[in-house]
């Protein structure tokens, strides 16, 4: 009985510390707009009662930065989200959004919880190594999320939509004051827009514009030159994920990235985003270039977490030594490459796209230096040393500069 009472008391305490329900701080009239007089009253009240000091600060912020109105944005799930006050404690369940937050210059000290993949990426996210983990979108630790008292939780919009829908629904039921925001930050078609929205959402408009300019110029360098290559002259590419003979097709991010780099994805029209192929189909398709993705499953090496060049060489040798592959144009012409998911799967996929463009059209892109672009991204937008680019391996064979 005593134990039951303690559990109930703890539950009540937990409910008390949950974020306040929606509404502008200091909006006494309740008209969803903060007037100057309301702000003054709020500040005067805070001078008398220090417990309302944070509300007064938020009210001042809303009044001076948002013209006294709540912020409204439409996230990548297509839903309108209303933000009533600036975020102080956020949980980020998708590392791609976290990386983009850094890119636009957001002060990530407000991040109080991250997913398990961010915690594992100690080389890329060193500042979060001691941040509490909240599981993953596939196995979220709801107790932990709620106990962190976040005012916003970031999840994916498209990846595992059902899992993210469930998280959103559960948090809406148990913690109605928490704003769930959904972004992907890895798809070429939506990424530029997401940069802008995140910039607005987190009041990093200037940083957002600067990063978007950098991103766009790097992508445009590739796409503008690729546009000059007629469709029927584009290089035939076989792309393989870290599962042997599993490729990418229309709808997947990798397919978009191959096309962006000027490649013609041989199996781009197959059903499903990641179909597994009959090996003989690859032989019969005579690819002119082969791109093999590494960085997960039995190919977990390289990228930011490091890896020896020898294992890249062994993987490459095994790839070109597959039965019958020596007759493939790609193998004959030494156009088989390994690329790490770190520079193709996430937000800085534009680095990977530049590598692919160099491989696909060496003459057109002889002046393109993806290594340099990668280093600039790390130093200028991620606060990481440029030496990583030289020390670690992201592609194989490494680019001759």
């Amino acid at each position, binding site marked *: 009985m005593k134990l039951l009472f303690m559990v109930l008391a703890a539950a009540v305490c937990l409910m008390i510390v949950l974020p306040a329900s929606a509404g502008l701080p200091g909006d006494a009239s309740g008209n969803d707009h903060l007037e100057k007089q309301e702000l003054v009253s709020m500040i005067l009240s805070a001078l008398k009662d220090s417990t309302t000091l944070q509300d007064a600060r938020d009210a001042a912020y809303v009044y001076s930065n948002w013209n006294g109105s709540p912020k409204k944005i439409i996230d990548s799930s297509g839903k309108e989200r209303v933000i009533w006050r600036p975020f102080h404690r956020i949980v980020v369940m998708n590392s791609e959004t976290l990386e983009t937050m850094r890119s636009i210059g957001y002060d990530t000290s407000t991040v109080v919880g991250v997913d398990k*993949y961010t915690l594992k990426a100690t080389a890329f996210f060193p500042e979060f190594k001691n941040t509490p983990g909240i599981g*993953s979108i*596939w*196995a979220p630790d709801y107790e932990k999320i709620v106990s962190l008292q976040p005012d916003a939780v970031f999840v994916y919009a498209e990846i*595992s939509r059902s899992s993210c829908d469930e998280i959103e629904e559960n948090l809406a039921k148990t913690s109605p004051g928490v704003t769930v925001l959904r972004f992907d930050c890895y798809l070429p078609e939506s990424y530029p827009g997401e940069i802008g929205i995140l910039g607005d959402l987190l009041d990093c408009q200037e940083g957002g514009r600067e990063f978007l300019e950098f991103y766009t110029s790097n992508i445009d360098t590739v796409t503008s030159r690729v546009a000059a290559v007629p469709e029927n002259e584009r290089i035939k590419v076989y792309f393989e994920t*870290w*599962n042997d*003979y599993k490729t990418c097709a229309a709808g997947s991010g990798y397919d978009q990235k191959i096309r962006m780099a000027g490649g013609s994805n041989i*199996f781009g029209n*197959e*059903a*499903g985003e990641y*179909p*597994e*192929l*009959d*090996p*003989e*189909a*690859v*032989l*019969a*398709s005579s690819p002119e270039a082969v791109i093999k993705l590494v960085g*997960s*499953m*039995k190919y*977990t090496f390289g990228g930011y977490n490091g890896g020896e060049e020898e*294992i890249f060489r*062994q*993987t490459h040798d095994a790839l070109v030594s597959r*039965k*019958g592959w020596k*007759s493939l144009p790609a193998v004959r012409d030494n156009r088989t490459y390994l690329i790490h998911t770190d520079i193709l799967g996430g937000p800085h996929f534009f680095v990977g796209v530049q590598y692919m463009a160099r491989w696909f059209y060496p003459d057109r892109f002889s002046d393109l230096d993806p290594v340099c672009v990668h280093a600039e991204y790390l130093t200028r937008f991620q606060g990481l040393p440029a030496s990583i680019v030289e020390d670690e391996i992201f592609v194989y064979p490494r680019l001759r500069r």
Partner: protein
Amino acid sequence: MDQKGAPGDLSHLREEYHRFAAKRYLFLAGCGILILILIGIATTLGSADLTIGEVYAAIIARFFPSVVESTPLASTIVWEYRLHRIFFAIAAGFGLGIAGAVMQGVLRNPLASPFTLGISAAASFGASIVIVFGIGGFANDIAIIIAAFVFTLLATFGIYSLSRVRGISPESMILAGIILMYLFSAMTSFLQYIGTVDQLQEVVFWTFGSLQRTSWGKLALVSLVVGLCIPFIMLRSWDLNAMGQGDQVAKSMGVDVSRTRTRLMLIASLVTAIIICFTGVIGFIGLVAPHITRLAIGGDNRFLLPASGLVGGALLLTADSLARTVLAPAIIPVGIMTSFIGIPFFLYLFLRKREGYW
């Protein structure tokens, strides 16, 4: 007793037995011919769009290079990708079919199969450990095969040891199998829970079953093990028939029931282990092939066992050929396709045969 009519009656019985046997031999021959036809067709199917002429030229050119010419592409596709896969499907289907028939016979239970006895669950757990913990690194594929095989054998010995405690009987073996199935399934689910989404996907894909990773070497190994086990199983087919009438009847006919049951279960498990460690879980063949065969020719194990193997081989080859071609060049996991084609056929026989056959 009426002694006068006895000679006539015996000849009538003999004739009836010959008819009975001839029908079953005919079924066996029919299955054999069906498999040969399926091989002939399956060889010409594939994503590479080779013509029938190119395929057979590639086959003949390997034996008579001076007589027929073949392109290197056709030769590689037929010899390095298609043929070993086709023969592996037959060997694996045969092994799973006969192993299923043995398990059903030994345990006198129509639901007994490697899947329901926890053997497949153990293999999945072995594969999951390797996948989730990344054991073997670059040689991950080999590590999966070894782990799946080892855990399958562990499950077999687990069933044997547990059932020995209660006395070797169909009931104790089935209960032990169910205990192990739930145990290994729970452990696999736990590994899936702590694994990444890629690892989870890989584990799930493994459990679908696939003939994608076959090779001539793997085919030779599977054929050798299945080939060595068949004579022993066939020699015990009379004992199985006797055991089908009940342990007491079998004992009264001189069958060492416990020993035969244990040995046959171990052999059936070994056959299953050597196959599913390469292919992933293809549990349905072991369950449905013996049933289809039993519905067609009855329960005499002398015919049921080899015929279940042949039906299993034909079923798996058909399923894999469809899996390779329905969405070509994409491949559907063969475990899914096996159920798709096996269930309607099984359902038809099940509804058509009104009398109990088991």
